[in-house]
C-alpha cells in the first residue's frame, strides 16, 4: 500500500505553548483515518499542519512522499514559496468545522470558484462539474442559493463539494459535524461515507464515534499533543488499553 501521509516527530508550538509534542503516524492511500481526543489535544492543529495552514516547528511531515512546506537539498531545508505551497494545496481538500463557504457566492459559484480561478478551467466545464458534485451531495436543487439560505448541514455538504471540485487525492475533515444540529449530522456523514466508499483517502477529526467505528479504517486517540493509542477503530473503541483513552471514551460514548 502506498503511504499518503507520513508524520515523523511532528512538533508545533504557539508561543510557549507546545501543542504537538512529537506525532508519528502513517496514513495509507484509500484509508479513512480518524483522529479523536479531547479539545486542546492538538488534533485540529495536526490536521492544519498537513496542508501547511500551520508551520511545523520540528519533525517532518510528508504528503504523497513530498515534504510539506519545505524542499530538502542535501542537509539543508528551503522554505517553499507561497505559490509552491498553493500548488500543493490543490491536491488536498479541506472541510472546516464552521464551513467557511464564501457568503457572497451561490452554492454553485462556491463549487466553481477554485477550478476556474486556480486551475483555469472554462466556466462552462466547471459549472457542469459543479452541478454534478452538488447532485452527488444531494443539493442539486440548491445550486442557486446563497449560503445564508442553507441549513448548516446543507452548507457543510456544499463545502465538501467545493473541496471535491479540485479533485484532491486527500481530504481533511476538521470536526465537520461539530457545528451542526444533531438532526443534520446524518446527511453530512452519509456524504462522507459515500466518499469513503469511492476510495478517497480521508483524515477525519471527529467526535462521531459511530462514524469512526463504522467507516474508519484506523483510529488514533490523541491527548496533550501526543498519540496515546492507535489501531483498528473497533478494537480501540471497544477495548481501550490506556487509562486516558478509557476515561475519555467513558465520557463520550
Amino acid at each position, binding site marked *: 500500500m502506498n503511504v499518503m501521509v507520513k508524520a515523523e516527530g511532528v512538533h508545533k508550538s504557539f508561543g510557549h505553548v507546545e501543542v504537538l509534542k512529537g506525532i508519528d503516524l502513517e496514513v495509507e492511500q484509500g484509508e479513512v483515518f480518524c483522529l479523536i481526543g479531547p479539545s486542546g489535544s492538538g488534533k485540529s492543529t495536526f490536521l492544519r499542519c498537513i*496542508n501547511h*495552514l500551520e508551520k511545523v516547528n520540528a519533525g517532518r511531515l510528508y504528503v504523497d512522499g513530498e515534504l510539506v512546506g519545505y524542499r530538502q537539498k542535501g542537509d539543508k531545508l528551503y522554505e517553499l514559496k*507561497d*505559490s509552491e505551497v*498553493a*500548488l500543493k*494545496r*490543490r491536491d*488536498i*481538500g*479541506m472541510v*472546516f468545522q*464552521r464551513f*467557511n*463557504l*464564501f*457568503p*457572497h*457566492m*451561490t452554492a454553485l459559484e462556491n463549487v466553481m*470558484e*477554485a477550478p476556474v*480561478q*486556480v486551475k483555469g478551467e472554462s466556466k462552462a466545464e466547471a459549472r457542469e462539474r459543479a452541478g454534478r458534485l452538488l447532485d452527488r451531495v444531494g443539493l442539486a436543487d440548491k445550486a442557486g442559493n*446563497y*449560503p*445564508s*439560505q442553507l441549513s448548516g448541514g446543507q452548507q457543510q455538504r456544499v*463545502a465538501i463539494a*467545493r*473541496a471535491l471540485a*479540485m479533485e484532491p487525492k486527500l481530504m481533511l475533515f476538521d470536526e465537520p459535524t461539530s457545528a451542526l444540529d444533531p438532526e443534520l449530522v446524518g446527511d453530512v456523514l452519509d456524504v462522507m461515507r459515500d466518499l469513503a466508499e469511492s476510495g478517497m483517502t480521508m483524515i477525519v477529526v471527529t467526535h462521531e464515534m459511530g462514524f469512526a467505528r463504522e467507516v474508519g479504517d484506523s483510529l488514533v486517540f490523541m491527548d496533550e499533543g501526543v498519540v496515546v493509542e492507535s489501531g483498528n477503530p473497533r478494537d480501540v473503541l471497544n477495548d481501550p488499553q490506556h487509562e486516558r483513552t478509557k476515561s475519555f471514551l467513558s465520557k463520550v460514548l
Partner: protein
Amino acid sequence: MTVDIDKQGPEDVPPAGPEAIKAVPVRHYGRYLSALVAIAVLTAIVLAFARGNINWGAIPDYFFDARIVDGAKETLLLTVLSMAIGVGGGVLLAVMRLSKNPVTSSIAWFYIWFFRGTPVLVQLFVWFNLGFVFDYINLGPVYKDEWSDFMTPFLTALLGLGLNEAAYMSEICRAGLLAVDEGQTEAAHALGMSHSKTLRRVVLPQAMRVIVPPTGNEVINMLKTTSLVAAVQYYELLRNAQDIGQSSGATVEVLFLAAAWYLIMTSILSVGQFYLERYYARGSSRQLPPTPWQKVKANMLSLRRPEVTR
C-alpha cells in the same frame, strides 16, 4: 416577490379571550409644549428670512446660468476623480499597512499620519505653492516641463483632495478587510488560491459591505470639500456662484443657489449609494431590501386589492 395573501383571515372580529384593557392614557404635556416651542422657533426663522432683504427672484434667474452649470460639472468631475484617487490609494495603503513587510506598513502608517493630521486647506496651499520649490519637472525620458505648466490649478486641486482622501479611505478599507472572517482566507488558501486571488475574489467583495457605507459618506463629504479649491484658483460651483454674486449684487442669493445645487447633487449620490449597498448585500441577508421602485409597485398592488391591506 410573493405576497402571502392567504395567511390573513377575512374576519374582523377580535379573537375571543380575556377582556381587552380600556384605560385612560397618560397625557404627555411636555411633548405638546416642546412641539409648540419648536414650531414657534421655526416660524420665526422662516418669517425673518421672508421679510429680510433677499431678492428671491434672483435664484431662479441664475439657477441654470451657464457659469453655474459649468461650475457644477467641474465640482462633479473633481469629486469623481479625487475619489478615484482616494479609493485606489486607500486600497493600496490598507494592503500595505496590513502586509507583513515592516517597511511598507511603516510607510503607509507615516502617510496616513501625515495626510490625516494636517488640514486639507494647508495641503492644497502647499501643492499650489510648490512652484517656489521646483522650477521644472523632469521624469527622465517620460516627461519634462516647466513646473508652472505642469501644476495647473486642476492638478493642484486633484492631488490635494485625492491624496488627502486616500489617507481616510485607507482606514475605511482596512476596517473592511479586518472585518472579514479569517476562516474565509483559510478556506481560499486551502483550495490553492494565491494571496492576491484570495484578496480579490474572496476578501474584498465581502469587505465591500463594510466599506461602502462610510465611503458614501466620504463621497458626499468630498463633493462639499471641493468648494475649498476656490482658494487655489480653480473655478468650480461655489467660485462661479460668488463671481456671479459680485457682478450682479445678489451675493447672498447665489449662496442659497449654490447650496441648492449641492443639496441636489448629494441627494442623487445618496440614491446611488443605496443601490451599491444593495448589490454588496447579496448573500448576506436572506431578502434584499426592496428598492424604492419595488416599494411603489408593491404599494400600488395593494391599493388595487384593498381587501388584502386592511
